[in-house]
């Protein structure tokens, strides 16, 4: 955003950028930037907290009163994510003991996923690479990779990184309808990511496939972006 701030300001607009990483904002030096010490992915700080979001915007727009720039300030309220906890989200019981565990789990979550989407008037972030109907075949393909099949021959219908985003999104949105404490599911950034990677059959299968691809010499781009960079 800091580079685009320079571009738009140069074209005659007054800009104010919300910056997630202060070091980057300081380096690029946009005309006006408000750094928020918030989890990445949440530049307004807190979902479902209109008062907090309003305070962020008020602070950002206040920078428009400054007579000269560049201006870089940090919003005084932090939202930190120092916890290593995963979300408490009990998964449905197995439906079909003969199915691949991840497939059975994903099928069992379908009703929760659909309730979650309906609760947001149909808004979903799932579907960039997969349809719901493709999830079982994708999980079977990941299982084949774990069992030694070359990832290019395993039957993945799309780029592994795109598939990984869709799988975690399907689980995240299902979990929003299942979590014991829905507010906590959204309050704590990364809690659902930890739950997905550690506590679900699909998360563990996906990470095992990622490791198998790495061990088999797949290109860095093929496996690395299936998970956050610190994994």
């Amino acid at each position, binding site marked *: *955003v800091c*580079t*685009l*701030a*320079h*571009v*738009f*300001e*140069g074209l*005659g*607009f*007054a*800009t*104010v*950028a*919300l910056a*997630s990483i202060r070091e*980057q904002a300081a*380096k*690029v*030096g*946009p*005309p006006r930037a408000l750094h928020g010490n918030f*989890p*990445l*992915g*949440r*530049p*307004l*700080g*807190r*979902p479902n907290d*209109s008062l907090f*979001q*309003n305070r962020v*915007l*008020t602070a950002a727009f206040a920078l428009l009163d400054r007579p000269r720039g560049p201006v870089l300030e940090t919003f005084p309220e932090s939202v930190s*994510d120092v916890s290593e906890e995963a979300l408490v989200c009990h998964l449905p019981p197995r439906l079909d003991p003969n199915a691949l565990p991840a497939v059975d789990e994903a099928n069992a979550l379908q009703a929760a996923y659909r309730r979650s989407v309906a609760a*947001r*008037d149909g*808004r979903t*972030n799932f579907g*960039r690479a997969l349809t719901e109907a493709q999830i079982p075949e994708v999980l079977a393909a990941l299982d084949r990779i774990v069992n030694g099949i070359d990832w290019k021959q395993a039957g993945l219908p799309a780029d592994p*990184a795109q598939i990984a*985003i869709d799988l975690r999104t399907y689980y*995240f*949105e299902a979990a*929003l309808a299942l979590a014991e404490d829905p507010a906590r*599911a*959204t309050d704590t*950034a*990364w*809690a659902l*990511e*930890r739950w997905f*990677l550690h506590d679900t059959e699909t998360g563990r299968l996906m990470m095992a496939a990622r490791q198998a691809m790495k061990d088999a010499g797949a290109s860095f781009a093929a496996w690395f*972006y299936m998970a*956050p*960079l*610190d994994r």
Partner: protein
Amino acid sequence: VSDADIKRAVADIPAPTFDVSSFVIPKRLSDCKVAIVTTAGLHHEDQDAFAARDTSYRVLDGSRRDIRMGHWSPNFDRVGFAADLNVVFPIDRLNEMARAGVIGAVAPRHLSFTGNQDETMTSLRIDSGPHAAALLRADGVDVVLLTPV
């Protein structure tokens, strides 16, 4: 997974620097029309998704809420946006501020680019950025609020 570790890892990635920078003094905020320009790779359901390092942009209709997160990176939280799009694209907050008279108006159209660009960002700086900005100028926009993920 640690937010702090990811921030540390990306803090030093190369980015363009600018020797000369414009600085526009705006009208009073209560007279300004405001548009959002995001690098979150947002798009409507009927628009093309973003490719990795895509330098194009999407026009977001401020009256629609069928907005998807199209950014490729696994290195940011996606749950906040899934639960409340305003945490990235604060369209409802801007509408509230306009109704309260804090800002003059909310633009009808907003712009979305995607991050994960090459370090020079040349295409955005000389091509798609100015091209997209012309749409905001046509809508009478005064102030641009930029949001990342």
